[in-house]
């Protein structure tokens, strides 16, 4: 059991703030997946805590159509989908510190409200090309949820943006590919690298300047 009795009330109270239904689209497989089973159990504990949450379980091997639709490339994977797919992804199990990010993602996908500052929302309107944010984390990192949640907020705010939480210890080859030796580490469009958690304003500035400086 992940969500202990004494926390159930608190999680419920958070989820009560949901306005529209949210579908948790989960990708898993039976074998060769370290935490697929545990992540499914976590989601099965979470879903009953709100009448607005539903769970859809997809087999990563068998359900190619869905895998392609959501562009899933590793498992366990979770899409938090509201009225539309905002681009919120979790690769690896969001327990430990990241459970908060999962609850926050449900709220955002439900309300469609990113909660970003008005000036950040304005600045993000300048984006004109797709932006993919990867945030590498570990489950024992107290600074990481700030980076994950900020990236997810940006994804909710602008439909050109997708935001992935990636639990580094669960995907060693991916972590090695991106040279993840400290977390949180954020990789934007495979090129811009941010070590550590940035405040909102600074993060938005880095995103915007990465796009404008790339323009021909």
């Amino acid at each position, binding site marked *: 059991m992940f969500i202990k009795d004494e926390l159930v009330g608190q999680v419920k109270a958070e989820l009560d703030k949901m306005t529209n239904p949210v579908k948790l689209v989960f990708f898993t497989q039976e074998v060769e997946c370290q935490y697929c089973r545990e992540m499914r159990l*976590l989601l099965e504990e979470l879903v009953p805590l709100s009448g607005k949450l539903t769970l859809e379980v997809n087999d990563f091997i068998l359900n190619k159509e869905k895998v392609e639709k959501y562009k899933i490339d590793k498992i366990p994977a979770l899409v938090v989908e509201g009225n539309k797919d905002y681009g919120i992804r979790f690769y690896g199990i969001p327990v430990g510190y990241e459970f908060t990010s999962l609850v926050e993602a449900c709220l955002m996908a439900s309300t469609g409200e990113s909660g970003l500052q008005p000036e950040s929302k304005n600045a993000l309107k300048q984006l004109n090309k797709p932006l993919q944010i990867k945030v590498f984390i570990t489950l024992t990192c107290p600074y990481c949820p700030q980076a994950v949640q900020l990236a997810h907020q940006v994804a909710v705010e602008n439909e050109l943006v997708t935001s992935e939480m990636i639990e580094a210890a669960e995907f060693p080859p991916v*972590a090695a590919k991106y040279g993840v030796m400290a977390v949180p*580490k954020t990789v934007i469009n495979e090129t811009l690298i941010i070590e550590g958690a940035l405040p909102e304003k600074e993060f938005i500035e880095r995103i915007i300047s990465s796009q404008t400086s790339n323009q021909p």
Partner: protein
Amino acid sequence: MPLNLKDLGIHLAPEGRKNIPDPTVLYDLIIIGGGPAGMTAAVYASRKRFRALLIAKDLGGQVLWTSDIENYMGYQYITGQELSKKFGEQMEANPIDMQMPDEVEMLKVEPGQIFRVKTKNKKEFTAKSVVIASGKRYRSLGVPGEREFLGKGVAYCATCDAPLFAGKDVAVIGGGNSALTAVNDLLKVANQVKLVNIMPNLQGDAVLVEKARDPRVELFLGWETVAIKGLDKVEAIQIINRKNKESRELKVQGVFIEIGLEPNSEFAKGVLLLNEHYEIIVDCSCRTSVIGIFAAGDVTNVQEKQIIVAAGDGAKASLAAYSYILNRGA
């Protein structure tokens, strides 16, 4: 070695109630910092019905990354996250405005003893009084390679980054409680841990010293770390024996720097009197050298850096600000 997920449990961030801050208001009190001192000050300010604002990077401060706490009264044992969460809940029951996550970059005294703060997110707020509870942060070693290899093998948060060093050889620099805790965290995943301390002994609590006695831990006591080396990531550290000046190179893929803390007092430089460690000098009522500005917790020159002391001083500072405002009038 996979993590035991069940032990990890789940964690809900201590959120506090996020009342929207108002830059047009002249606050009674601005509290800088969200650790035990700042959070306690916030609860007291709320109960005095102060128009108060808390500016913080997070709620919990250093407590957030303290794993086990056994000396906070009322709890024989509690984790840092749980205690922060309980503090957060108490703040939620006693809400004030919150500007978070953000950090204060500038503090200015204006005519009429009005205080203006500017934040990293370029917000400005004014108040009639201030409680500074901005705490401390990790100190850096200041050797070649340290900055260059940040995120490439140099790490400051062992609980965060230990899982990324599974099966690797690592060094921990330091000899106090945080260094020994890092050794403990790393022993769970790493191959070999080299503990390098500039002092000839370990300063940490006996309990932690005992836990660090492990065949996989090699001690280098009285050795100074002078350089961190590698090509595109850490490959070795250079250490020198303080007594006989012998120099050695230790092959490691990670370096965890755990040599204590320094105060977050930059914004107070030139405004308040600081001591030689850049801590804010306070009297026993948490008053600083400027009337109307109070300080509490680890950022001050109070000797005991303890959660319970910081929390107590946070209460004192908030109450001192309250009586200051009452006597100030208007």
